[in-house]
């Protein structure tokens, strides 16, 4: 996609503040407003994160499973693993039943959930990468076709044909990862795409390769862990067969030894501010990073010392435990990947509340919900128009990451602040917490949001005073001007300079 100066998202000019320009959707059609759903006490991020973790785990199992079965089939063909075929057929049926069904549908579910969470983000991703996605689809289709051919005819095929189908399945599955990895890693590190708009500059971005290698090894590890469970629970295998199969399957865990290096590579390829959230700046992210790293470490150590060096036999209970650790590692890693993008969903292009940097400038003047065509649900429950306006501002700007009183609830976060403190903290939101986007609205909208938070914190009283002090508005305006519209991490970087 060619992009001229008018479409660059955020460009640093010599000695000037950030120039914020238009991207994503043309200004001629304005900000696209979408109906916003209330997920109750659940944060939207948790919903998409939960499904995402589950899907990634299954998708990686499908890829690693292909590698494992191709390896086993090759060993069988060489006469090095007699029981391989017996195992492979059963394992592949499990893969088809789990991955082809739930894996495929949760993949579609990721699209649908992304639409529910942030339609503009998924819209931008589709606009930018639809041909990459379409290419990925051709590989996914090949994966399904080769997989079903093996599933239906594998038992009646000669070794060479089996190896061909498994190899084709595995290659297609891995390339599916290859393409999706480029899109996902672009969200955090769009790289030179930000300047040039060149698709391939965005696709082969700074975190592309570490992420690809990391995910490949993770996929192999997950497949080996599932195999360990299947092997140890299989009644049709003799103990010696199980030991031999386990040892061979564990070889796919060996590349985990490289994961610390790949993890470090990934971390250092991240933007500095994102890295700082992971490494202590954000307790939640640091905790999940620790969970992911710790679980990976435990699996890796057991695999290398127990399964590979000492050739220990593991029963199904131990195999299950290792698999749970593998899932925990996936969960930790995915949470970190999602969280580290803050305050953006696409770095320097689209904020986490689906506003472009340019739109924030406009909304500071014209208001963020002035053109929102969707009315408040239960509008009569609110005591006055000011709180109603605040509720709309909350819905438009905050509800993608926050709830009112549930997970990450604004009442918990800001309910104890004084009015002035809330005004200041929201006006300078990106400096209050640098992983927050700048407030995008007028002083009136900000004051309305403050009153909405206070009203909710006061357990929604029937009567609630309307504030209209011009001095307060003027103060809010000053704070908003001081804060500017650039992301908070840029200020921190400038201070250091």
């Amino acid at each position, binding site marked *: *996609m*060619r992009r001229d100066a008018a479409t660059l998202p955020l460009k640093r000019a010599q000695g000037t503040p950030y120039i914020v320009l238009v991207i994503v*959707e*043309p200004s*001629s*059609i304005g900000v*696209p407003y*979408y*109906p*916003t*759903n209330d997920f109750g006490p659940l944060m939207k991020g948790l919903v998409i994160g939960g499904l995402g973790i589950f899907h990634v785990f299954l998708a990686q199992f499908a890829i690693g499973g292909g590698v494992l079965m191709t390896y086993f089939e090759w060993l069988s063909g060489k006469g090095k693993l007699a029981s391989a075929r017996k195992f492979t057929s059963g394992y592949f049926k499990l893969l088809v039943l789990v991955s082809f*069904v*739930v894996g*495929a*549908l*949760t*993949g*579609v*579910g990721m699209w*649908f*959930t992304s639409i*529910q969470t942030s*339609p503009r983000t*998924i*819209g931008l991703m*589709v*606009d930018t*990468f*639809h*041909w*990459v*996605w*379409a*290419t990925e*689809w*051709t*590989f*996914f*289709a*090949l994966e*399904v*076709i*080769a997989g*079903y*051919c*093996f599933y*239906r*005819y594998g038992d*009646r*095929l000669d070794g060479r*044909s089996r190896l*061909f*189908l498994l190899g084709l399945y595995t290659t*297609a599955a891995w390339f599916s990862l290859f393409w999706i990895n480029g899109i996902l890693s672009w969200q955090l590190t769009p790289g030179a795409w930000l300047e040039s708009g*060149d*698709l*391939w500059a965005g696709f082969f971005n700074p975190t592309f390769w570490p992420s690809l290698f990391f995910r490949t090894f993770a996929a192999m590890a997950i497949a080996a862990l599932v195999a360990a469970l299947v092997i140890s629970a299989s009644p049709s295998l003799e103990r010696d067969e199980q030991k031999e199969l386990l040892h061979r399957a564990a070889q796919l865990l060996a590349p985990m030894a490289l994961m610390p290096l790949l993890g470090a590579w990934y971390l250092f390829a991240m933007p500095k501010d994102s890295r700082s959230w992971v490494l202590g700046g954000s307790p939640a992210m640091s905790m999940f990073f620790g969970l992911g790293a710790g679980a990976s470490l435990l699996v890796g150590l057991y695999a290398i010392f127990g399964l590979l060096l000492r050739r220990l036999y593991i029963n199904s209970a131990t195999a299950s435990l290792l698999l749970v650790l593998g899932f925990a590692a996936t969960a930790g890693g995915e949470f970190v990947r999602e969280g580290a993008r803050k305050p953006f969903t696409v770095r320097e292009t689209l904020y986490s509340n689906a506003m472009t940097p340019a739109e924030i400038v406009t909304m500071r003047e014209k208001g963020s919900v002035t053109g929102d*065509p*969707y009315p408040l*649900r239960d509008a009569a429950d609110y005591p006055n128009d000011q709180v109603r306006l605040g509720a709309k501002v909350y819905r438009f700007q905050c509800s993608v990451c926050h709830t009112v009183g549930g997970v990450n609830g604004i009442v918990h976060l800001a309910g104890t602040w004084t009015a002035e403190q809330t005004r200041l903290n929201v006006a300078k939101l990106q400096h209050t917490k640098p992983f927050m986007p700048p407030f995008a609205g007028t002083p009136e909208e900000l004051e309305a949001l403050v009153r909405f938070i206070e009203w909710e914190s006061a357990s929604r009283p029937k009567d609630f005073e309307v504030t209209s002090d011009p001095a307060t508005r003027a103060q809010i305006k000053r704070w908003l001007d001081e804060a500017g519209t650039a992301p908070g991490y840029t200020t921190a970087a400038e201070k250091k300079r």
Partner: protein
Amino acid sequence: MDAPFPFGFPGPTTFYLVTYVLTLVSHVVFMNYVLAGTAVLLVRQIRGKAGTSDVLADLLRDWLPFALSAAITAGIAPLLFIQILYKKAFYTANLLLFHRWMLILPALIVGFYLLYAQKTAFVKARPRLRVLVTTGALATFLFTALSWTENYLLARNEGAWAPMYASKSMIYENREILPRMLLWTLGALPTLAALLGWQLHRRERAGAAVDKATFQRVARIGLGGLVVAGACAAGYAMLVGPAARAHAVGPMAMPWLAAALVGVVVEGVGFVGLHRAEANRGTWLGIASAGLFVVILGTTVVREVLRITAVDFAALYPEHARAAQVSGRWLFLGFFLVNAILAVWAIRTALTRAERPAV
């Protein structure tokens, strides 16, 4: 919009429309097999006698899980292009239907596993359970069909968005929904008949005995489907109102509507021939399939024309133009070809190298 579809639009819009329609057609073929196949399987299970073999039921039980997988896989491509073509409308309909819409995912997962459960010895051995399992699967697919119908109609009707949001309803009420769903569901029968016919034909060529009555049954499913779907289409046309009717017979859709009608005749001839044939069934199936392809393509285009004319489509042209500036289409076309060749190679390997099971 006075030219036949897909002409009369800017280049990028035409390109995405054609890509969308073609990929949607491939999805519809498999979707029809699943929807009509599950319904036919249920009917045969209810009417079937214990201990008697039923070639059609066996075929369906065996192939429905794969067909569902194929339908989902083929459905991903149109799902991608619909986001380019109608981004805001599609996303808004998704959001308004909310949990109702998202329920199609667990529903399809349940339906998928129920189809697999059909193949187990445990279910096969229990006639009542068999019927229950198939009923469950059919219910999940009908629910999915209902949800898609609602989504399509809601996306077309921008005036309904804000009131529906305010009402908190996750059910879009529109008198077109049920007749429309009935039309598409019954219209799936001829597709199933053609595909089942080819499966039986292949079996016969492989040396298995398939009696004439089974082919005739398939032909009757196809002919019956054409008749009832035709009646539904006529009823639906009366219901949609003069504006939509005018667009359906307007310059953009008329050639495709005419083609679909010709396709129906060709398909009918094919199925009648199949019903009568003692030999050369492949020829009659070929005729029926050619007609079927034209019918699916024609009706899919008419469906799209009705959407195009219901929304402010011209306002979307700049978005299509901007999306078309993104590079990567040659990459897609290249890999599409390579992977299609590899897929054919994989299928050929499986079909030609596998030892034949004892007939």
